[in-house]
């Protein structure tokens, strides 16, 4: 017995089917393939995927009740399809955006023209948690601070793609993008014969090139390392994966030390070895106990010294997070005009800044319609989902906002687009977003698609894996070739 697609109905924009229930052009092959499968076929494929994930050891770590639990990666086997033409435009928009963000960061740490020209209020900078005064006057190579950026894209009910946020500190998820594809190839090999699906596994090589380009020493093969906080970090799987795929050493803080010559070394069986580039996956504040958090054992003493003297490259650069702030976010379209003199290709989601009296007034009066976000949290923590919150929670948030207006911004609740997702007893629409990754360098690189995160619970808009979200393989499909 086949799946009853007649029952499938999304109350917003659906990625696979249009309003009349017909598959969109790029998804035609996938849809016709899926309709031929019986419910039993589908659940067999799902089991195969679960097994593949277990066997491949694709996991993430959740911290709960004082214990770290390694969980299998929650994955939905029905891919999400994006037409190539749309993706090309998105790619351009992302590159434009990250160029402007890097220009902003460099400006903030040097001349601060953006403030002098009154494009960005000085007061906002003063309150920024991620501004690092230690980075003033530093000029990393090519003016690039955020070498790796993960931007979250969402689609509203009209089908427009918006940027929801930019992650410029230590964005994660890219390994799952690659592994999701590996799983899908095991589960639906036949689809790859008939559909022109763009490959995604180029990323580690591209990342390697990006990092190698940062080496302070010319010639020779640079020594690149990936600095991880260790096995208890939720993204440890990814750290291992990327280090392995790039063929670089995976190091922990105690493996590194900075000598009196300000050069960074790692401890090896042959004695100390000089390190040129550190792809760090720990937060700024843990990088260097000499400068930041004195208790930190995750970083290495003297790293900032080595970095400011140009003896070692750090990616992303410390202090890049100043632009990874939900309040700064609202200025990005202005930055694109200001620094690049271009019109933004990708729109921002409409946002209200609580530090502005009028906008705060609106927010406080309309809390039940809005999502309120703290400026500097990630992973979906510390948010208020207005429509779902109780009166008490809304009141609590109103107090929080009044006490620290700079720290909050609000957005209307978007009805995120949906895609068909397997649930117990069939296929139903579930909301999703998309996180592409952008590598900044002379010729920037954008992943082919990105990581699609899906809220597995009916009606839920929360896609974070730490909060019950799952993911899907993302297909950029070429509709010109291979059709018919």
């Amino acid at each position, binding site marked *: 017995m086949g799946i009853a697609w007649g029952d499938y109905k999304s109350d917003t924009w659906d990625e696979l089917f249009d309003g009349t229930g017909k598959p969109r052009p790029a998804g035609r092959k996938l849809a016709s393939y899926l309709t031929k499968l019986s419910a039993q076929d589908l659940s067999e494929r799902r089991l195969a995927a679960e097994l593949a994930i277990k066997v491949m*050891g694709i996991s993430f770590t959740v911290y709960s009740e004082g214990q770290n639990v390694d969980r299998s990666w929650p994955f939905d086997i029905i891919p999400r399809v994006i037409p190539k033409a749309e993706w090309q435009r998105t790619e351009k928009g992302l590159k434009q955006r990250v160029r402007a963000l890097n220009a902003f960061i460099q400006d903030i740490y040097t001349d601060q023209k953006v403030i002098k020209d009154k494009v960005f209020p000085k007061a906002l900078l003063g309150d920024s948690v991620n501004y690092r005064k230690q980075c003033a006057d530093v000029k990393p190579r090519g003016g690039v601070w955020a070498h790796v950026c993960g931007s979250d894209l969402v689609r509203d009910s009209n089908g427009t793609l918006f940027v929801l946020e930019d992650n410029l500190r230590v964005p994660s998820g890219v390994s799952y993008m690659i592994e999701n594809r590996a799983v899908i190839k095991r589960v639906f090999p036949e689809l790859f014969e008939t559909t022109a699906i763009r490959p995604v596994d180029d990323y580690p090589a591209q990342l390697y090139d990006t990092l190698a380009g940062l080496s302070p020493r010319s010639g020779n093969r640079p020594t690149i390392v990936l600095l991880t906080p260790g096995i208890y970090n939720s993204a440890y799987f990814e750290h291992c994966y990327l280090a*392995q795929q790039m063929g670089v050493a995976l190091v922990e803080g105690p493996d590194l030390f900075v000598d009196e010559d300000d050069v960074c070394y790692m*401890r090896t069986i042959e004695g100390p070895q000089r390190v040129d580039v550190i792809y760090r996956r720990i937060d700024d504040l843990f990088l260097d106990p000499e400068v930041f958090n004195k208790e930190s054992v995750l970083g290495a003493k003297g790293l900032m010294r080595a970095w400011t003297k140009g003896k070692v490259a750090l990616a992303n650069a410390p202090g890049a997070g100043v632009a990874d702030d939900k309040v700064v976010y609202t200025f990005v379209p202005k930055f694109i005009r200001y620094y690049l003199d271009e019109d933004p290709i990708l729109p921002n989601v409409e946002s209200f800044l609580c530090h502005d009296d009028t906008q705060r007034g609106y927010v406080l009066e309309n809390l039940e319609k809005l999502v309120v976000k703290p400026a500097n949290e990630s992973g979906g923590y510390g948010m208020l989902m207005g429509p779902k919150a109780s009166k008490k929670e809304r009141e609590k948030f109103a107090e929080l906002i009044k006490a620290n207006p700079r720290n909050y911004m609000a957005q209307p609740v978007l009805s995120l687009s949906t895609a068909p997702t397997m649930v117990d007893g069939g296929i139903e629409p579930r909301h999703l977003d998309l996180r592409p990754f952008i590598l900044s360098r002379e010729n920037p690189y954008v992943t082919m698609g990105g990581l699609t995160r899906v809220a597995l619970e009916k009606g839920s808009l929360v896609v974070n894996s730490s909060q019950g979200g799952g993911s899907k393989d993302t297909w950029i499909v070429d509709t010109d070739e291979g059709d018919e």
Partner: protein
Amino acid sequence: MLSRVADNLYWGGRYLQRAESTARLVTVNGHLLLDLPRQVQAGWMPLIEILGVEKQFKTLYPEAGDTNEANVVRFLLNDERSASSILSSVRRARESLRTVRDTLPQESWEKLNDLHLMLQADGEKGLNRRYRQEFLQRVIDACLLLFGVLTSNMSRDTGFQFLRLGTNVEQADMTTRILDVRSVNLIRIRGADDLAAFENIQWMSVLRSLTAYEMYRRLVRERVQGDSVLRFLLQDREFPRSVAFCLMRMQRTLPKLPEKRSVERAITRTLALLRDADVDALLKKDLSEFLDEVQVGIKGINDALSEAYFKA
């Protein structure tokens, strides 16, 4: 190579080898008990003695009547509280190798996870005498598969050398332990003429716990006897589980690592001890003391490695 990584690879290798050896030990002891008459049966406690974990066993199973098959087998197979169980060895191998996953072929990590999942799923069932044999065989197969994947897919880089050092130290250690306990046992039943036939059975079981029986027969071509078994397992230069073979293989590994005289000396010294051993004399007396000396030598190698490479 990072010192921390070398350390983890070495211990990953040791724990994997330990898991395999433990599975073999339990298997062979089961077989042996079926063949021996009741009055010479030593039961299951010799396994605890072989591993030198009497204290830990006593802590978990304190009663006098606790030294029975069910408890010993649980202690060695899937007791989470016991550091000597196969489950714990595989867990520790997984924890060590997990932190250095980036240096291993992806496939080997998948196989290690398979083994871990299998132990969790079927460990309890494996305690049951009816399924034990099959269960242990699956553990052994999984370990061999893992070693196979590593040997076939891994470049002979520094990381591989540390894994190999780990497996060889562990094997040398286990071989001496098995000899030690079994030989003590053997001496116990000497003298009683009617039991002489069973002496051979015991020596055969020693060989079998090290999968050495067939190789021994091919080489020695006479019936199984104490002196030649001892010579084979201590001094043979061709059999991969003999103590001398393991040490020689470690010796061959050293040129691929940064030179450290202390490690070289520790290995050479222990090898000389083995070569100079007069096996016939040892069988008459002092075998146990001699094996203790070899054990001290192996521990010395372990400590020299740790000092030279893991504590940068």
